[in-house]
């Protein structure tokens, strides 16, 4: 410490703990493979899950759910439930109609004329999916509450289920919302930023080759380890409420709860305690959150609701569920002419927070990494009597990436070209960045060549192709397939002006506050809400590197609207590229303030100060220096500050990104297919991901691994199946197959590092990349193995039975020539395997 400082008693105390202010910053924190700070408590059970929260007088809420996909509610009688021991209250939808709000929010009206049905937390007139809430019970314990559900009498008048999207759009189809007169939610038409697609293809005349396919994005069930739950504690006299919820979005939730229930925003505190994964399914405002809140308000007592896994599968939003008609056109030499995409997107029965926005987000990703002069995208949103869909890891981009990467392989097959060579011919080269895409985005940076070269080398592409030829030659019962996915994605949601142009209801900024404590420790407050991402660790590294303080000296405050009052929360791989940059910028403001004070204390001009590794030093006289911790202490004491300066280093920053971030990479997959059984085994998986500058390679690796597992799960394992009556027949983990470690291959991961140029850290998002990239790599490998057998597509998941049926040629007849509407040659298939239909109509016998 210098003699200019006089921090009194605090300084004396600190002097007795000599390490407190003098711990030097060793440097190299950015890019260091730190173990995650949060893991010790996670693996020792010292977590604070929502369901662990217990309060004096806590009541337990359960929700009675519709067993029918579609029915008129004739009557709901809760009187018998009220007679049971331990039951405090029971309410039908009608009982709560005046307090539960007019409708739950959908924040993304994707077109001005979008049909937005009323969606109350409990159904009052009709139930519209199996799992739709009909009544609630509140009891002293969960057992009494569960028993009481069985005592509620509901009379239904069954209405026709609406299960199939195409059937739903036919004239005269039964309506999910009869008052709307249609099952079409919206038609989003996006002609791209380039030339007209049809004209471009016609212009190429006989030189145009057109390939079309129909791909299905099956419905998926997000399966976070922790299902949903909520606890609401009222202070009745003040009409104030604290809500703990398993949510990714406490800040958004608070605003939406206020708007929905009329409880003033400042009377609501929302806390996301430890949250065990979300994958997009906790990016929502849920009926049970509103119900717990209004019931707690009504009763003046704390209320808890925790869902079971079966309930989770019915009542938590689902993912994907699109039919993709995609057409790609190229000249005979393989140069792309354009892309036409027509989507049908299943909304489910109602619009949740961003239901309609998910497929529309994909509009910008279909052209992916490829240069093409024309592009046309349309998407029709469709209501069905199924659980609402919404964001699921990748949200819009996995669907788009799948379709483009699949059809690039089909185009290569049509042209007789090597699929990687065709990609190389058409992708943006690294010299061409920044590149303005036909879908309107400007990609800031990338190097597809570097990632691909590295991946091919790790994969031994040449060796595997040789082996493949040999196996084909000798008709080996185990055939080898090789799949490619050269992907990019848009993440770091999002520049607010872009969201505005897409009619999204909020901005895409993130906030950060950095607080220097008197002892030199740092609290960083972030509006990004962690639910498994490793924020505590990564933010500590950013702050440590920026301020020059030890990693251990940084603590994160997040996930509570009282202590981190401003935020847009966590989804869309935005935490680092938006929230992390906000933190970095806030630390810059801390350093600016500290520099003024240091200059004052060192009696030097600010211009003469250097700052590095946490120390201000005077140029030319290196012995005159102060650490940032010393400055923090001096600021706390405030005995000797520059005139007019506020005694605080604390700084806030709200960062609005100027662009999305565009991670990319090359994923290569080799599968062995047992042609006798149809079983697909992934034998090699290589991915080289470019996520820009890396803050923590361990966290990056973890995100890639988890992402790969989820993407592979879509390709080979997971599928939510509804029967013709609208029952979810894969309603438990017995029938909905989530792969575990033994089912997944070793992941051979590599990296290239092309910094993002649109943010000062050079970082890109990584939370969804693995999921987005891996699904088409696997399916391309499966189709590659089967192509000699005349197979040119397979529905997901590529189950052994589907593969076997494809090999038997018993798959639904796939057209070998589509109609030619632009001149030139054209091939197409309408996809859809026979097995999928027969499977779906044949529920479990078990």
């Amino acid at each position: 410490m210098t003699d200019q400082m006089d921090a009194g008693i605090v300084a004396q105390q600190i002097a007795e703990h000599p390490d407190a202010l003098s711990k030097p910053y060793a440097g190299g924190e950015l890019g260091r493979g730190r173990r995650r700070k949060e893991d010790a408590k996670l693996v020792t059970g010292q977590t604070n899950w929502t369901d662990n929260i217990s309060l004096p007088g806590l009541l337990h809420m359960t929700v009675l759910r519709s067993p029918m996909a579609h029915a008129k509610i004739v009557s709901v009688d809760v009187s018998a439930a009220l007679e049971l021991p331990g039951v405090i209250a029971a309410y039908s939808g009608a009982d709560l109609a005046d307090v539960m709000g007019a409708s739950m929010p959908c924040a993304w009206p994707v077109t001005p004329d979008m049909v937005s049905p009323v969606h109350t937390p409990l159904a009052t007139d009709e139930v519209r999916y199996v799992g739709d809430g009909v009544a609630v019970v509140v009891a002293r314990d969960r057992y009494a509450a569960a028993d009481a559900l069985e005592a509620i009498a509901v009379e239904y008048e069954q209405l026709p289920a609406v299960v199939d999207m195409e059937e739903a759009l036919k004239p005269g189809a039964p309506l999910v919302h009869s008052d709307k007169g249609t099952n079409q939610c919206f038609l989003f038409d996006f002609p791209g930023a380039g030339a007209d697609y049809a004209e471009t293809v016609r212009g190429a005349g006989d030189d145009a080759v057109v390939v079309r396919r129909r791909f299905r994005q099956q419905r998926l069930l997000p399966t976070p380890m922790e299902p949903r739950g909520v606890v609401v504690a009222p202070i009745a006299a003040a009409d104030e409420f604290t809500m703990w919820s398993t949510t990714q979005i406490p800040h958004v939730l608070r605003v939406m709860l206020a708007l929905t229930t009329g409880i003033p925003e400042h009377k609501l505190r929302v806390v996301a305690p430890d949250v065990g994964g979300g994958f997009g399914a906790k990016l929502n405002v849920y009926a049970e959150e509103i119900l717990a809140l209004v019931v707690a308000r009504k009763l003046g007592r704390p209320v808890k609701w925790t869902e079971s896994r079966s309930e989770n599968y019915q009542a938590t939003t689902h993912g994907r569920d699109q039919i993709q008609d995609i057409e790609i056109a190229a000249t005979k030499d393989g140069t792309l002419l354009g892309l036409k995409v027509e989507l049908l997107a299943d909304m489910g029965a109602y619009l949740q927070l961003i239901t309609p926005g998910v497929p529309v987000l994909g509009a910008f990703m279909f052209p992916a990494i490829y240069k093409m002069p024309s592009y046309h995208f349309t998407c029709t949103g469709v209501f069905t009597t199924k659980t609402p869909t919404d964001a699921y890891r990748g949200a819009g981009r996995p669907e788009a990436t799948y379709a483009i990467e699949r059809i690039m392989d089909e185009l290569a097959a049509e042209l007789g070209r090597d699929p990687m060579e065709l990609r190389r011919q058409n992708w943006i080269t690294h010299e061409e960045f920044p590149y303005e895409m036909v879908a309107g985005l400007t990609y800031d940076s990338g190097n597809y060549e570097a990632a691909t070269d590295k991946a091919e080398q790790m994969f031994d592409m040449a060796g595997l192709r040789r082996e493949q030829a040999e196996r084909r030659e000798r008709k080996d019962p185990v055939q080898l397939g090789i799949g490619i996915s050269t992907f990019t994605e848009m993440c770091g949601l999002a520049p607010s002006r872009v969201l505005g142009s897409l009619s999204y209801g909020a901005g895409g900024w993130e906030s950060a506050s950095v607080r220097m404590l008197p002892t030199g420790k740092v609290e960083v407050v972030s509006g990004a809400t962690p639910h498994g991402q490793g924020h505590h660790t990564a933010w500590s590294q950013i702050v440590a590197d920026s301020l020059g303080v030890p990693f251990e000296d940084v603590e994160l405050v997040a996930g509570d609207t009282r202590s981190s009052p401003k935020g847009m929360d966590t989804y869309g791989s935005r935490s680092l590229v938006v929230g992390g940059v906000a933190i970095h910028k806030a630390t810059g403001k801390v350093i600016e303030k500290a520099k003024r004070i240091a200059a004052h204390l060192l009696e030097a001009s600010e211009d003469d100060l250097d700052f590095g590794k946490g120390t201000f030093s005077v140029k030319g006289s290196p012995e005159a220096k102060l650490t940032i911790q010393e400055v923090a202490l001096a600021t706390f004491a405030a005995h000797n500050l520059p005139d007019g300066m506020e005694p605080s280093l604390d700084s806030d920053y709200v960062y609005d990104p100027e662009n999305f971030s565009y991670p990319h990479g090359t994923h290569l997959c080799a599968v062995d297919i047992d042609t006798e059984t149809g079983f697909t085994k992934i034998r090699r998986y290589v991915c080289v991901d470019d996520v820009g500058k890396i803050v923590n390679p361990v966290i990056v690796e973890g995100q890639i691994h988890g992402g790969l597992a989820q993407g592979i799960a879509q390709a080979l394992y997971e599928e939510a199946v509804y029967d013709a009556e609208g029952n979810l027949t894969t309603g438990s983990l017995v029938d909905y197959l989530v792969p575990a470690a033994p089912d997944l291959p070793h992941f051979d991961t590599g990296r290239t590092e092309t910094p993002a140029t649109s943010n000062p850290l050079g970082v890109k998002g990584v939370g969804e990349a693995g999921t987005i990239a891996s699904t088409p790599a696997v399916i391309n490998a499966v189709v590659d193995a089967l192509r000699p057998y005349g197979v040119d597509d397979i529905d997901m998941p590529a189950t052994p039975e589907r593969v076997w049926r494809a090999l038997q040629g018993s798959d639904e007849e796939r057209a070998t020539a589509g109609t030619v509407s632009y001149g030139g040659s054209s091939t197409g298939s309408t996809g859809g395997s026979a097995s999928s239909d027969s499977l779906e109509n044949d529920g479990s016998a078990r």
Partner: protein
Amino acid sequence: MIPPEFDYVAPTTLAEAVAALGEAGEDAKILAGGQSLIPVLRLRLAFPTTLVDLSRVPELRGVSEDADTLVIGAMTKHSDVVEDPLVQQHAPLLSEATATVADPAVRHRGTFGGALAHADPAGDLAAVALALDAELVAEGPGGRRTIPARDFFLDYLETSLSPDEILAAVRIPKLRGSWGVRYEKFNRVAQAWAIVGVAAAVRTEGGAIAEARIGLTNMGSTPVRPAAVEAALVGASDRAAVVAACAAVAEGLTPPSDLGAQADYRAHLARVLTARAVAHAAGMSS
């Protein structure tokens, strides 16, 4: 888990357990490892009045020898069956099949007897018991009786145990001579039920199959012993002969069509997997 209310008793001897079951009456359920019963309770698909928990009855656990027979206590956990040296030596087919049951957590809770008494045709161990000509020892108020495996499995989730009987042990004749074994399990993810499973024990003499015993998992409402195929396999001395003999394995069977697979695909799998299991067990793999 939020099950409906039930009474719970935990006897410490088999005699006490039989008495407790008798007292509890018709709507009582026996709790062994709980790997099937607990999920059913959790989903409120069953409403037993009493659970008789056998986990504190030591005499129901462990593996012993009785001359040419292996005796496995009904409450022996899967993980103990897998590790047991006597089982590995005298009934390696059971070790191999048990190692494929679900996942480690289930194998450390679930029991051999519980799995057999539950009689799910998709469970792996019933087919093994059938193939190995096991005998099931039941204890009831009238005393002890022994039921051959072929008479034990009556239908889907239905056995010849009467409601007041407890499965006490399983007796498995030791394999003597030149036997090879194989359990071919086909499932989509490691912890899932078998879509089809084939348990095979094959005795060879002079390079040809002298005796074959086969049990099929999930090819009907009970485990199945395809006697005609077993007979046809005798004398087979190469893979082609095995494949030919196994072609008829699904004849006369009515496997289920469900989310896991359609019946025709199951029949196909049974043919492929039976040939593989037998060829492997007979050392005719390539």
